[in-house]
């Protein structure tokens, strides 16, 4: 990689990056979603003393001026609402000058009444990511009919924080992907979609279906220059030419997870509760260090720096040739769609915020990255 004028901004970006402590507060969940891999035999919840110790240790280990994210995971973390309150009170009470953002990933079904009130009182430091797959029919299909248990008005009108939804698409809901994205955007949500991991995608049939849905979304974003494209169409393709270093997840360097028993893990995905079933991370890779590429061909692929950035997913899929090929084929569809969107934006919608909010140096690399992807991955 040659010397570039981008070196300084990259350094600044990384210096501001928060460390993330994940606390797996509880292994209990009130739902049984169809695509969830968690081992439901695990039923532990964390004791307050365990959480306090984990917080003290991270405060001791990290520079005082560095911001900290504390991610509260479950199960359903709001089943442990008293512990959530305790963690926030303990942290703010003992480390008042530390810049901390608390985040929880929740199915939303318990966020009513006093929990809503508490969130309103703490909204300047507490963010909820809501698990929501789309409209009622889509959501209920895989998420135990829980759609009507969510108070959407709270998240979109009263909470006062921009809420991101975490959504999963499966082959059976794929044809509604674009409609669901547009509907949730209309409600005011930020959107992070993922293709369900480790399930029987039929590449011959599903790759064209996915491409068709992404084409609908490309048209949608070209008509709405003020809308930031959802995550599947916001890939960091400006990293493809090699001047920009992508932000990758580096467990045990930028983050770690503490399980209910107090043991430290690379991330929540490597805890015994999450790491079960056919797609388990093998013991020798459980630290998630030096996991490498999904398959040997990745080493020469043009998107190698940004593709399969979750080391836990890569570690779980390595050694499963069929699943590896499925992942690769669907990823290619996604990268090509990202490239198409960028090229068409520059040609047809140059005022789009996806372009204009970035410095010229990054725009150049977006365009170059898009052209490389179209040449090499189609």
């Amino acid at each position, binding site marked *: 990689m040659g010397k570039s*004028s981008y070196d*300084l*901004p*990259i350094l*600044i*970006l990384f210096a501001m990056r*928060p460390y*993330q402590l*994940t606390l797996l507060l509880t292994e209990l969940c009130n739902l049984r979603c169809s695509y969830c891999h968690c081992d439901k035999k695990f039923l532990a919840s964390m004791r307050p003393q365990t959480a306090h110790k984990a917080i003290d240790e991270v405060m001791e280990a990290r520079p005082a001026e560095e911001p900290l*994210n504390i*991610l509260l*995971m479950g199960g359903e973390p709001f089943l442990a609402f008293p512990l959530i309150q305790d963690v926030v009170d303990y942290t703010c009470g003992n480390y008042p000058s530390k810049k901390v953002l608390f*985040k929880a*990933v929740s199915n939303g079904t318990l966020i009513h009444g006093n929990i809503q009130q508490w969130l309103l009182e703490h909204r300047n430091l507490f*963010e909820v*990511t809501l*698990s929501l797959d789309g409209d009622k029919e889509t959501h209920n299909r895989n998420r135990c009919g829980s759609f009507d248990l969510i108070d959407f008005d709270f998240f979109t009108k009263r909470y006062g924080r*921009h809420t*991101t939804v*975490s*959504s999963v698409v499966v082959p059976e809901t794929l044809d509604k992907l674009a409609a669901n994205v547009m509907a949730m955007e209309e409600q005011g949500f930020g959107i*992070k*979609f*993922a293709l369900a991991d480790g399930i029987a995608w039929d590449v011959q049939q599903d790759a064209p279906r996915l*491409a*068709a849905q992404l084409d609908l979304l490309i048209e949608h974003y070209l008509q709405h220059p003020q809308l*930031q494209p959802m*995550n599947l169409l*916001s*890939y*960091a393709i400006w990293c493809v030419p090699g001047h920009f270093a992508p*932000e*990758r*997840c*580096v*467990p045990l360097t*930028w*983050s770690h997870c503490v399980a209910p028993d107090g043991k430290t893990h690379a*991330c*929540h995905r490597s805890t015994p509760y999450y790491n079960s079933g056919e797609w388990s991370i093998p013991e020798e890779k459980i630290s998630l260090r030096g996991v490498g590429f999904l398959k040997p061909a990745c080493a020469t692929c043009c998107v190698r720096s940004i*593709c399969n*950035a*979750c080391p836990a997913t890569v570690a779980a899929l390595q050694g499963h040739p069929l699943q590896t090929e499925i992942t690769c084929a669907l*990823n290619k569809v*996604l990268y090509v769609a990202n490239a198409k969107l960028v*090229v068409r934006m*520059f*040609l047809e919608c140059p005022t789009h915020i996806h372009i204009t*909010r*970035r*410095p*010229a*140096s*990054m*725009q*150049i690399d977006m*365009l170059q990255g898009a*052209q490389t992807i*179209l040449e090499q991955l*189609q």
Partner: protein
Amino acid sequence: MKEKFEISADSMAKLSEIQSRLAKSESKEMLSSQASACTCCWGGWCANGCTG
């Protein structure tokens, strides 16, 4: 099989022109924390700070 996305000669010329113009205005402004997005997770639970 889906059709390949091709960039026409006219469009390619236009893209080259855009790149030249951008190169002239290239700035060293600091990247915002929103500058990056990634493919790592869907729940905002990785530590990349790109949770939207």
